[in-house]
């Protein structure tokens, strides 16, 4: 028995030997959440897409600030009111050496429309928006038509990874991608190994149309999200981590062996006041329900905003890494309104406004929110509750795991029925990421009146409703001219935010921590990609 053991031990050493001996440029990234599948049409979780982006590309790429740039398409333009023409890149090779053509694009979109069996959240709905139809014109031209004028075509297609017809037709969703058989893409890295829970590995694709990749091999290793994952960086298990704990940022910055990269995120953290006539979690000083609901008075909403000390949240909770805001998209995004500045901290005026609105004696609030979704979400909730309590609105916090929180936020009230959601919470903290780099669907989703049929207000969980905003939002969705659309969006945003449709707190700031011999170009959309990292020693 002992004999056999030592033999096994020796065998083990022989196996690991060569891997160490070959000098390779390997980048090991410690990620908070690992990719659940290598099928790019399986989910849209950012932990999944960031790994898939190494292998698969889209017609339209996204710049670091999420603006559309050429990807597998070199150019696109509207050729009439309802048709967009996409010119594809020529000479692009799939990882197995086949040529990329328009057939692959058609195959991909057909697969999505037919439905990816079992996929929890395929991005197929991007194709339904505007009633898109697609047609191959020649090997390198594709036409996409819509019901009416459709301005955000490039943004939509930037969400749809293209897969190879010859490799993926007939493949079993997710399963065949996880084995690598169907995971044939055009991206700079090729599938190498997928062992969930342990690591995911991709290797360089030297025939990549954009030139040879920087790394021979990239390893993604799940490291959890508490401070243990910083330890993985500090003692050299990984070269780089996403979401370093904000509290430890100063310590990492001071350490000469490590460095931090930073960029404002597309994710707005905000508080949604409810607009029902009576809100269950807003009660008067005796604990009785209030009629009318004070949150329907915009002075109360403004008071709530003025009572929040956003700088204190930034400095004491976010480690300096947040961007106090009154806008709904971050600076640099299409639709950012220069004039909207974050509300100052002014508890006196908040109290004056409350008194003016007739709530000088205050009322009780229960503030809901997730505790595992956004950066420091629970601590922000508690800080806001402190601040509101101090202006005379005793506030309780009810924080819960995201899997419970979101279903209650969206349709937790018992009046909900299929096709008609009634949110449960009276006032809740949540976040919205403008993935497309463009504010049209952020305005439509968060400010427009809720309408399940049109998809308007699908993120409007306070059921805010303002005809002036609605008119502009609907018009923006039909306006192709960029300048005109920008003007309409800015008007809609200004009207909504001056009315305190919701109470913005800040934009998150994305941070990465890495060894100091690495240089990283950060992205607003939170993706961690080896393409953005290079060695600088």
């Amino acid at each position: 028995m002992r004999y056999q053991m030592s033999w096994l031990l020796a065998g083990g050493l022989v196996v690991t030997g060569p891997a160490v001996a070959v000098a390779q440029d390997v980048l090991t990234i410690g990620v908070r959440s690992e990719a659940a599948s290598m099928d790019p049409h399986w989910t849209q979780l950012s932990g999944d897409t960031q790994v898939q982006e190494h292998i698969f590309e889209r017609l339209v790429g996204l710049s670091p600030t999420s603006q559309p740039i050429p990807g597998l398409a070199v150019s696109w333009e509207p050729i009439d009111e309802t048709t967009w023409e996409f010119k594809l890149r020529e000479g692009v090779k799939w990882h197995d050496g086949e040529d990329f053509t328009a057939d692959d694009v058609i195959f991909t979109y057909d697969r999505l429309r037919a439905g990816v069996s079992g996929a929890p959240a395929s991005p197929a709905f991007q194709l339904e928006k505007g009633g898109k139809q697609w047609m191959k014109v020649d090997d390198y031209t594709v036409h996409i038509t819509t019901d009416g004028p459709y301005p955000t075509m490039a943004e939509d297609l930037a969400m749809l990874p293209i897969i190879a017809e010859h490799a993926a037709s007939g493949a079993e969703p997710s399963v065949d991608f996880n084995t690598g058989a169907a995971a044939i893409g055009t991206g700079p890295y090729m599938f190498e190994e997928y062992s969930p829970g342990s690591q995911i590995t991709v290797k360089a694709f030297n025939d990549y149309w954009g030139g040879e990749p920087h790394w021979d091999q990239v390893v993604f290793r799940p490291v959890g999200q508490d401070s243990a994952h910083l330890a993985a960086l500090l003692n050299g298990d990984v070269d780089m981590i996403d979401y370093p704990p904000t509290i430890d940022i100063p310590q990492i910055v001071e350490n000469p062996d490590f460095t931090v990269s930073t960029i404002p995120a597309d994710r707005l953290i905000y508080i949604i006041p409810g607009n029902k006539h009576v809100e269950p979690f807003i009660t008067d000083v005796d604990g009785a329900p209030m009629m009318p609901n004070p949150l329907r008075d915009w002075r109360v909403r403004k008071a709530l905003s003025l009572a929040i000390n956003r700088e204190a949240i930034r400095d004491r909770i976010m480690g300096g890494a947040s961007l106090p805001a009154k806008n709904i998209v971050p600076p640099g995004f299409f639709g950012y309104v220069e004039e909207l500045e974050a509300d100052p901290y002014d508890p006196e005026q908040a109290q004056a406004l409350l008194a003016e609105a007739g709530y000088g004696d205050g009322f009780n609030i229960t503030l809901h929110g997730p505790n595992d979704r956004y950066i420091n979400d629970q601590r922000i909730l508690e800080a806001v509750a402190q601040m509101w309590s101090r202006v005379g609105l005793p506030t309780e916090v009810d924080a819960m795991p995201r899997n419970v929180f979101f279903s209650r936020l969206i349709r937790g009230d018992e009046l909900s029925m299929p096709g008609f959601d009634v949110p449960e919470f009276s006032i809740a903290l949540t976040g919205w990421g403008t993935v497309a780099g463009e504010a049209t669907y952020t305005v439509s989703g968060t400010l427009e009146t809720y309408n399940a049929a049109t998809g308007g207000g699908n993120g409007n969980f306070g059921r805010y409703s303002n005809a002036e905003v609605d008119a502009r939002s609907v018009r923006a969705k039909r306006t192709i001219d960029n300048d005109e659309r920008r003007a309409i969006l800015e008007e809609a945003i200004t009207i909504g935010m001056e009315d305190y449709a919701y109470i913005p707190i800040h934009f998150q700031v994305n941070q990465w921590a890495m060894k100091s011999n690495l240089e990283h170009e950060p992205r607003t959309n939170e993706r961690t990609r080896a393409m953005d990292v290079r060695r600088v020693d």
Partner: protein
Amino acid sequence: MSGAMAHAAPPPGVWRAFLRSPAAVAALAVFSAFCVVAVIGPWIAPQNPYDLAQVDIMDSLLPPGSESWTGMPYYLGTDGQGRDMLSAMIYGIRISLLVGLASGIIALAVGTIVGLVAAYRGGWVDTVLMRIVDLQLSFPTILVALILLVILGRGVDKIIFALVVVQWAYFARTVRGVALVESAREYVDAARGLRLGALRILFGHILPNCLPTMLVVATMQMAAAISLEATLSFLGLGLPPTRPSLGLLIANGFDYLQSGRYWISVLPGLVLLAIIVSANVLGDRLRDTLNPHL
């Protein structure tokens, strides 16, 4: 009747035997001290950590011995929200002990009834009840509690329920064992002969004789329950974060350990350890002195 009562009282000298161990005396002192702190907590804590108007984010992460901007001293520092650690720990002790005691007492009550009934009735009642007990005991406590909390969600009532579910079977089995031995004794036969009611025999005669054993099991179970609650809270499945127990305080403080702010996690950890160790030492000593056959 009087004979039964004499039987129930601890044999003379148990108390003296108990006191002979310095470790046990120290454990008793420590545990009692924590109980006292838990009871009078709201009157001795410098701050009410649940009243958010008293907690100021600007005072967050101050080391022990600092002062707030109003001059209030923070003897043990503050946590990430600006909560006074001393006050948070006092309230945390309250919650941890409350959860441990409440779940222990309810489980004891449920387990005692089940055990007595099983022992007294015997037959198929006994068989069925003990199969359920065996089944319950064959699953690891942490797994059962974890599943229950995943289903039920968070809250003091829910964690107490989960802890009762994982504990009652221990009591049931122990009580049944002791009760079987007791009901074979002469005094029970005598009581039966006197045509005393079943309830009276169970609760008046058999139950008092189970007490020493139950005391030992209860002490050990409480230590286990407090530890389990802390573990579940640490996994994010126990108590709501605004009413932190010791386990949750430790979990929160973990985020700050790397930046050298040890007090947020280490201090509540030591208190938790002290409570569990003292309860276990007490249980151990009780077992040695009362010498029930466990």
